[in-house]
């Protein structure tokens, strides 16, 4: 009986192993399924992330094409491809699109821009002046970045949802400008633009990115026909004494505006220059009387030169009456130069009014002839400048030996502004402690005035060095 019970008990334990095995198998299955699900989710997440990242960079590529082609120095500059595509100032609802279709699609209808109406109000795009230009993204038939369009337009307070002037009103019509430090509604500085890019991937992922950007101008303004830095102690006359010679501070571009014919940077310099600017009638400009002036137009712009606005760092200034300040200016021009040359023999680099350049010449520069059109832009020469005929307009900075000479008696003109500063010994080229005496010698005197201030050519010479992104955002889709 007991044996039977024992057998029963023994029999009742049979199958436990199976249960345990089944349980273990179940557990393993659950774990395996969990792992599979987790892995699938990870795959899905990483796929989404990859798509999002691809769309982001595709849209970013569109933004950069739009921003880059706004720059006149860019070989693919919008206006070089399509003249007047971007005018000097866009008006409200001037909308420009860069289109990047795949195949024969019309991207503006396949992927309509609903964001513009969101920013400017319903129906705004329908009433806008729209121009389009092709993207340069596809190269040699190879598809480029997968953005569909890039929009460029001016902005208002309302469109960027920002109260710029703190009047608690978001103005819907006044366009915004950027003065180097702040946006404003007073048209101060350069026009701010919005660049918006839509990217659409083949899997349908979409992304819109947006910049607010404004041009940064390398601004150099010397309001005089000739600015002579340092204490002028020259023994010879500054310029030429013949009646046919002239340095004029009358703005050629705006005759109502008068500047100094010659500006010094200290009282001593002005006194010394005054004695050397003879006859006075050769130097008309502000400070002189109407008609043939009884006194030469010479004055001090020391205050402006001591607080000269840093062209690369808005809001900062440096002292251009010192060697350190002059060297800093030279350094900044070098960093923004289109070309750095040992001399001026490569005249093709000297630009033109339509395409001004920034050129640094480390040695002497000999300019002559009457090229059509004359070179134009900013020309920094660290050696002597030899000049005759009418080879250049704009801004010439002879900072180094500080010598400017007309070496042949021919009809000679220069329009713009000339800056002379001696920072090195002209013979040994050893650095000086304080600015020395610059030289302006002129052999022939025909063609009065020979050097004339011209605000238009000076302004035209200032290069746009970049379009600075003022803000960046991703617009949710």
């Amino acid at each position, binding site marked *: 009986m007991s044996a039977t019970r024992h057998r029963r008990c023994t029999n009742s334990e049979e199958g436990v192993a199976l249960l345990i095995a089944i349980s273990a198998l179940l557990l393993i299955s659950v774990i395996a399924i969990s792992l599979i699900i987790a892995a699938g989710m990870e795959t899905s997440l990483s796929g989404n992330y990859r798509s999002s990242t691809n769309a982001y960079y595709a849209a970013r590529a569109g933004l950069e094409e739009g921003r880059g082609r706004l720059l006149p120095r860019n070989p693919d500059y919008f206006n070089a491809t399509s003249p007047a595509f971007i005018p*000097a100032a866009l008006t409200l609802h001037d909308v420009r699109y860069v289109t990047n279709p795949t195949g024969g699609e019309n991207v503006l209808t396949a992927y309509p821009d609903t964001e513009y109406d969101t920013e400017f109000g319903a129906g705004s795009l329908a009433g806008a002046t729209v121009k389009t230009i092709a993207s340069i993204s596809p190269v040699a038939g190879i598809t480029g970045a997968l953005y569909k369009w890039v929009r460029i337009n001016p902005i208002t307070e309302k469109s960027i949802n920002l109260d710029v002037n703190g009047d608690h009103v978001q103005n819907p019509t006044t366009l915004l400008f950027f003065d180097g430090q702040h946006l404003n509604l007073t048209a101060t500085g350069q026009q701010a633009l919005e660049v918006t890019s839509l990217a659409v991937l083949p899997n349908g992922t979409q992304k819109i990115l947006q910049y607010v950007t404004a041009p940064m101008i390398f601004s150099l303004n010397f309001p005089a026909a000739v600015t002579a830095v340092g204490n002028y102690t020259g023994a010879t006359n500054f310029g030429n004494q013949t009646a046919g010679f002239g340095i004029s501070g009358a703005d*050629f*571009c705006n005759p109502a505006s008068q500047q100094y014919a010659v500006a010094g940077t200290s009282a001593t310099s002005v006194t010394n220059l005054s004695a050397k600017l003879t006859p006075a009638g050769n130097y008309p400009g502000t400070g002189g009387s109407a008609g043939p002036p009884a006194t030469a137009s010479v004055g001090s712009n020391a205050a402006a030169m001591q607080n000269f606005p840093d062209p690369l760092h808005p809001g900062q200034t440096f002292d251009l009456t010192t060697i350190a300040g002059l060297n800093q200016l030279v350094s900044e021009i070098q960093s923004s130069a289109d070309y750095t040359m040992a001399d001026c023999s490569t005249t093709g680099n000297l630009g*033109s*009014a*339509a395409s001004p350049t920034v050129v640094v010449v480390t040695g002497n520069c000999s300019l002559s002839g*009457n*090229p*059509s*059109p*004359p070179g134009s832009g900013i020309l920094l020469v660290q050696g002597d400048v030899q000049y005759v*005929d*009418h080879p250049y307009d704009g801004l010439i900075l002879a900072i180094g030996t500080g010598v400017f000479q007309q070496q042949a008696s*021919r*009809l000679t*003109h220069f*329009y713009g502004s000339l800056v002379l500063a001696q920072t090195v010994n002209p013979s040994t080229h050893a650095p000086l402690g304080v600015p020395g005496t610059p030289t302006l010698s002129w052999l022939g005197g*025909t*063609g009065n005035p020979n050097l004339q201030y*011209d605000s*238009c*050519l000076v302004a*035209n010479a200032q290069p746009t060095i970049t379009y600075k992104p003022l803000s960046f955002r991703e617009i949710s889709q």
Partner: protein
Amino acid sequence: MRRRRFLKSVAVCSAVLAVAFLPVCRGATRCASNAHTPNILPLAAAFAVSTTTQEHSPASSSPANPAAAAHKIKVWTNDELIATRTPADVYIFQKEEQAAALVVEGFNQIASCFAFGQAEGNAEETQRAIDTTIQSIRDSEEAVVQARRALGTAPDNLKLRNQMELAQRTAELNHAREQLWKLQEHLQELEKSPAHDSAPSQAPN
């Protein structure tokens, strides 16, 4: 009774006023005869009406009349007239002078294009001046060509400015050509003259 007294007092007052205003009316009549200003003329004429009989009688203008001789005639000098100007008058006169000066200046500028100065100097000096002027003309021609091409390629913001430059270059060229014509005329005159070698030496303008 009261009415009669009133009429009497009116008559007395009128007589007194008439005596008091008589010299003024005489002066006004004289002014009226010389007046050029339309505003003064009617006023003076009004005064003149009341004194017509005295003024037009030959006796009153005769120097033999001791009463007329005793009356001193005020002679206005320019300085006195200027002193009577109001600030508004001064302003208007200044504006007129400035406008006239501008007109004269403009005329002189235009006239200078056609008024050729007299070239002087002997044949050798004139020939030298001709050579220099020919060189100037070549320079100016190059400058005009340059300005014209620059105008064609200029950006929109510089078109107006470049037009001004082209106009200036063209004016320089025309001036140089006129100078050359003048010098050549002078040289021809010198060559026609038998004693041209002994002409006074003076540089041409």
